[in-house]
């Protein structure tokens, strides 16, 4: 198929493309849940839903997934060459996401030794975020980002302001006199529908996680795992600042030993997301400026 250029296309509508690297397609599914773009934008490249095999020049390039294989890297570098605005979409693109679990040395060794196939993309030594290789204009955090966030990125809405934290969107009652001594989670059975999940012994990090998700997990009773990353207050700080901020919330509301909280926060489920804007991916790069994060 011939490579399209902007000039050849119908310029009545702004154009965007979605480059999917190694990920789960959840970001793409979320984008499909936002249909407001259908009449306002021309989607010129997104293999999940469009039969097109080359990324053309576009106004907005959305990139989801991490850089896992040599093919991911090649596609990434080619795609950004003539995109006006490059957006990293979702936790995997921003920090490597769940693939970071595969970056542990003991796993990496097995993974690389077992995964070599004739004529297929080769695995790079580690899975890496996209900004380890290319410049990013905007970050859309979340696993996946909400449809509203996609709209804000495409429509360039200067007034878009998600609420500060998940906690503020959740609205569960915080109590000073219901102080669990240990994390108990779902082992107790029933979740009280109105009381703060921390008071009930759940490891919820909604107090410092960026809002904008409508607290979809915590309202029905599942503790926040922090998939939207830290709030603006913490986003440019190192991961310890976030850890300490969560520790302070637990100290105020519970009698759970700090070490227990710390271990929980460093366990895979939370570590996947908590450190996505700081040093977890091991790139050694400075934190992303908060102005670039939706």
């Amino acid at each position, binding site marked *: 198929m011939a490579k399209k250029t902007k000039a050849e296309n119908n310029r009545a509508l702004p154009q965007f493309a979605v480059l999917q690297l190694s990920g789960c397609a*959840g970001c793409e599914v979320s984008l499909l849940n936002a249909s407001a773009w259908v009449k306002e934008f021309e989607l010129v490249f997104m293999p999940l839903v469009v039969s097109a095999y080359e990324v053309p020049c576009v106004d907005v390039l959305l990139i989801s997934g991490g850089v896992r294989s040599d093919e991911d890297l090649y596609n990434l570098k080619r795609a950004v060459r003539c995109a006006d605005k490059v957006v990293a979409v979702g936790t995997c693109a921003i920090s490597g996401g769940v693939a970071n679990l595969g970056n542990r040395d003991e796993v990496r060794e097995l993974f690389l030794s*077992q995964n070599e196939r004739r004529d297929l993309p080769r695995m790079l030594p580690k899975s890496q975020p996209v900004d380890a290789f290319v410049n990013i204009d905007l970050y859309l955090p979340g696993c996946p980002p909400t449809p509203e966030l996609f709209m804000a990125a495409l429509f360039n809405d200067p007034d878009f302001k998600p609420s500060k934290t998940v906690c503020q969107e959740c609205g569960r009652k915080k109590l000073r006199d219901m102080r669990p001594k240990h994390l108990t989670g779902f082992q107790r059975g*029933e979740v009280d529908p109105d009381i703060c999940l921390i008071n009930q012994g759940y490891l919820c990090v909604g107090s410092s996680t960026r809002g904008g998700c409508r607290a979809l997990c915590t309202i029905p009773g599942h503790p926040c795992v922090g998939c939207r990353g830290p709030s603006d207050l913490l986003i440019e700080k190192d991961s310890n600042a976030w850890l300490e901020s969560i520790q302070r919330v637990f100290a105020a509301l519970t009698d759970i030993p700090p070490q227990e909280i710390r271990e929980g926060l460093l366990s895979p489920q939370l570590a996947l997301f908590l450190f996505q804007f700081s040093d977890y991916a091991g790139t050694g790069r400075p934190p992303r400026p908060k102005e670039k994060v939706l």
Partner: protein
Amino acid sequence: MTTLTFPLSRIEGHARVEIEVRNGEVLSTRFQAMEKRGFTLMVKGVPAEQMPVIVPRICGVCSTAHHVASVKALEDAYDVTPPPLSSTIRELLLLGQLIQNQATSLFVFTMPDRLGVESIFHITTQEAEKKVQFNIARRALMIRQLGTDLITLAGGQFIHPVKAVVGGVSSGVDPEKAATFQQRIHEALPTACELVETYWDISLRMKDRIGTWGDDQPAYYITSTNAVKPNYDASMIRVLAPDGKDAGTFTPAHFYDATEFEETDYSYAGRTSFNHGVMRANSLARANMTHSLDTPLADGFLTRLRKEFGTPAHPILLFDLCRGIELVYALERAAELLDQPLNDADTDVPYLPKDGEGWGLVEAPRGPLIHHYVIEGGKIKVGEFIIPTVHNMLAIERALRVAAERYITEDSVNMELEKAVGRVVRAFDPCIACATH
């Protein structure tokens, strides 16, 4: 020897097809899964109770199925039985997944093949067709959205649900929200039926144009749903022989004994066989192994399928038609469930985590999905994911060979082959992220 390579789009994940040809003879047809993230290794050492939040990330399309399968595997290991209300809410979750998936496959992935466009989102500039196409796209996205919203209602987060927990679900469904949603389904059902009718008609026109429904030889069929009123929250796997006879029933723990599995050197996904023969999972398998869906509109379509194609039916483009039947079924069934009280009883029971082994089975849109965990010291020692797309790998390659032999002669390659490759693969609706995990 010539190798023809076809990149694939409008499927989940990165894959391509390679066909080797010598003097007009088709030597091989290969379906190559081209990505790999390594979840089997990634979950090693992870606290077992965190699996239901981690494993949905195997696939954003099939996340709900992984979420529920994971919880069920842990419940099996911990010997905990969730209360009945939680099973109903999990069924709603899996129905939401089915609606979202079948609507996506039908209207976003395969409808463009029937309309002759590159994407449902590429509205043609030809005025006459523009309206028709836009009308289909608008309604298709509306139906698809119902599936996503049902996942949100029953599962919390909209892509990677969280509400299924060991011991049940974390909360019920508010009666007011349930009633509003049920109303939405009732309003959408006629539209869904119209879309399925339209899909059926244009599929017939496509069949007339290309001269086949994708004829291929009979195969084994595999599902974990019941013969009457499908249960996606399943416990047993059934197999139907190519001649339509019962070929056995087994539990997920016996999956490895009952089937054969092998890796290949040209794909990051392996493949499964039954009695060393080709087997098929997904919608056509379920249709061939279901006597009645037990909802009026869906049963109407199922009867029509039986009348037109007999049972078991084998042409591969019927997979697509069966997805339409299931879309209608899932909407009807979800409306039935939303009529019941969904927050009047316990939704989860206490449990004690312990070490051991667990198997979790659900019928995902693509077929039986199994999670198998071995837990030691509270952590995952073995985490295995038995993926329905892998059961279809041999079937996809055999169907590709039939298509290749149809369009390749000693003198030439008919370029219809490129379209045929897309149609064949999409009929099976493979999920590459899952297959390679």
